[in-house]
């Protein structure tokens, strides 16, 4: 009973205080009380608020990092695809140029071009043979001249057919030791023979010591060739050795076909 009385007294007191607070809410005393409680509580509120905002910003940063990582990997993939596309289009462009150049080959009186793709080039036979995708069905015969087209549009000696099958042919390259062709130094009108020797270079035979050759001189096919027409580019002189013995110079030629990759060729067949 006594406890109840105390409880009620406390309740009345608290009610009175509350009502006084409401009534005097703007008086300096109440404002002071408010300030006091506020100063006790607000640091805690600030700390927790900072804690929450920092946690929030941490989570935001984390999600941003994940987003950036995802975006980065997507961009990398896209970059890879674009690079691949660029390479593909570059290859297509190069092929386009080569094919356009092939189309520039003019039919001569006796010969017409049959366009073919190089389909096999074995590493062990790198300087000797290639297989092309045209054969006797297309009119190709043994010992037909095969020419390649350079990027600048010039035709150059590539080789000659040595074996012909129904839809493929084996071409002996200009660098093959079996390959030998009469050639001419373009400006000097000096005739000689060009031989392959299973390397990236060719050798010129029968050039007299008196002939004034220079490095860089161009070699073209001669009138004496019964396979190739005259004037087809073969290569350029890269080395000249004049020895004390013998009557001839030792001249090394770099064929044009070694300077460029050749994927399409033209077999010149009789009309």
């Amino acid at each position, binding site marked *: 009973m006594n406890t109840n009385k105390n409880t009620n007294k406390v*309740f009345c007191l608290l009610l009175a205080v*509350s009502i006084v607070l409401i009534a005097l809410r703007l008086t300096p005393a109440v404002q002071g009380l408010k300030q006091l409680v506020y100063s006790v509580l607000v640091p805690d*509120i600030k700390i927790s608020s900072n804690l929450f905002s920092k946690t929030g910003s941490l989570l935001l940063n984390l999600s941003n990092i994940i987003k950036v990582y995802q975006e980065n990997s997507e961009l990398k993939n896209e970059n890879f695809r674009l690079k691949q596309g660029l390479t593909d289009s570059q290859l297509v462009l190069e092929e386009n140029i080569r094919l356009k150049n092939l189309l520039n080959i003019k039919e001569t009186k006796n010969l017409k071009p049959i366009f073919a793709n190089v389909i096999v080039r074995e590493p062990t036979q790198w300087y000797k043979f290639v297989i092309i995708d045209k054969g006797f069905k297309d009119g190709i015969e043994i010992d037909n001249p095969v020419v390649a087209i350079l990027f600048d549009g010039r035709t150059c000696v590539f080789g000659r057919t040595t074996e012909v099958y129904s839809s493929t042919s084996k071409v002996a390259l200009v660098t093959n030791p079996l390959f030998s062709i009469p050639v001419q130094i373009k400006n000097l009108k000096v005739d000689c023979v060009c031989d392959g020797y299973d390397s990236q270079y060719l050798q010129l035979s029968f050039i007299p010591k008196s002939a004034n050759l220079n490095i860089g001189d161009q070699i073209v096919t001669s009138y004496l060739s019964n396979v190739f027409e005259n004037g087809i580019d073969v290569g350029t002189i890269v080395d000249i050795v004049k020895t004390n013995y013998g009557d001839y110079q030792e001249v090394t030629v770099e064929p044009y076909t070694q300077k460029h990759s050749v994927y399409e060729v033209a077999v010149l067949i009789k009309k």
Partner: protein
Amino acid sequence: MNYIISILIFFILIIIQFVIPKYMPLNIWTLYPNFILMFVVYTALNKGIMRGQITGFVYGLTWDVLSTDIFGVRTLGFTIAGYLAGSFNKKLNKNQPLTQIIVMAIGLIVTHLILNITYVIMPASETVFVQNFELSYLIIFNILINLFLTPFVFKIFLTFDRKN
């Protein structure tokens, strides 16, 4: 030890009630549950009138300090809610969810009633949102959310209480 726990609970509740809503959208904020009143009612229902009214007074005063509402209005409302809820101590089965909901409903109604009466009697000069009568659908919805959550929150309080 009890004082330290009480202070700890006090700060936790203040953080839950005042800090977390800051990071919520405004439309959810208005429906945010009144955890402090739940604690006042819980304390009153379990510990009696004296503890209930003092808890109500302290928490109400704190609310008034931290809000821009009419100063003293929550102190009065929570004190009365604590007193009324405490008067049901030992008279009702306080572990029954329905009892908890009913007592909480009384506390909520009293608080809102006092708030609205105060607004009517003295148009607030400190408050930004001056309303003629606050009983809108939002208030009703807020009360319903509070009542729905009451048994769960009381269970958490009870678990915490038993551990100490």
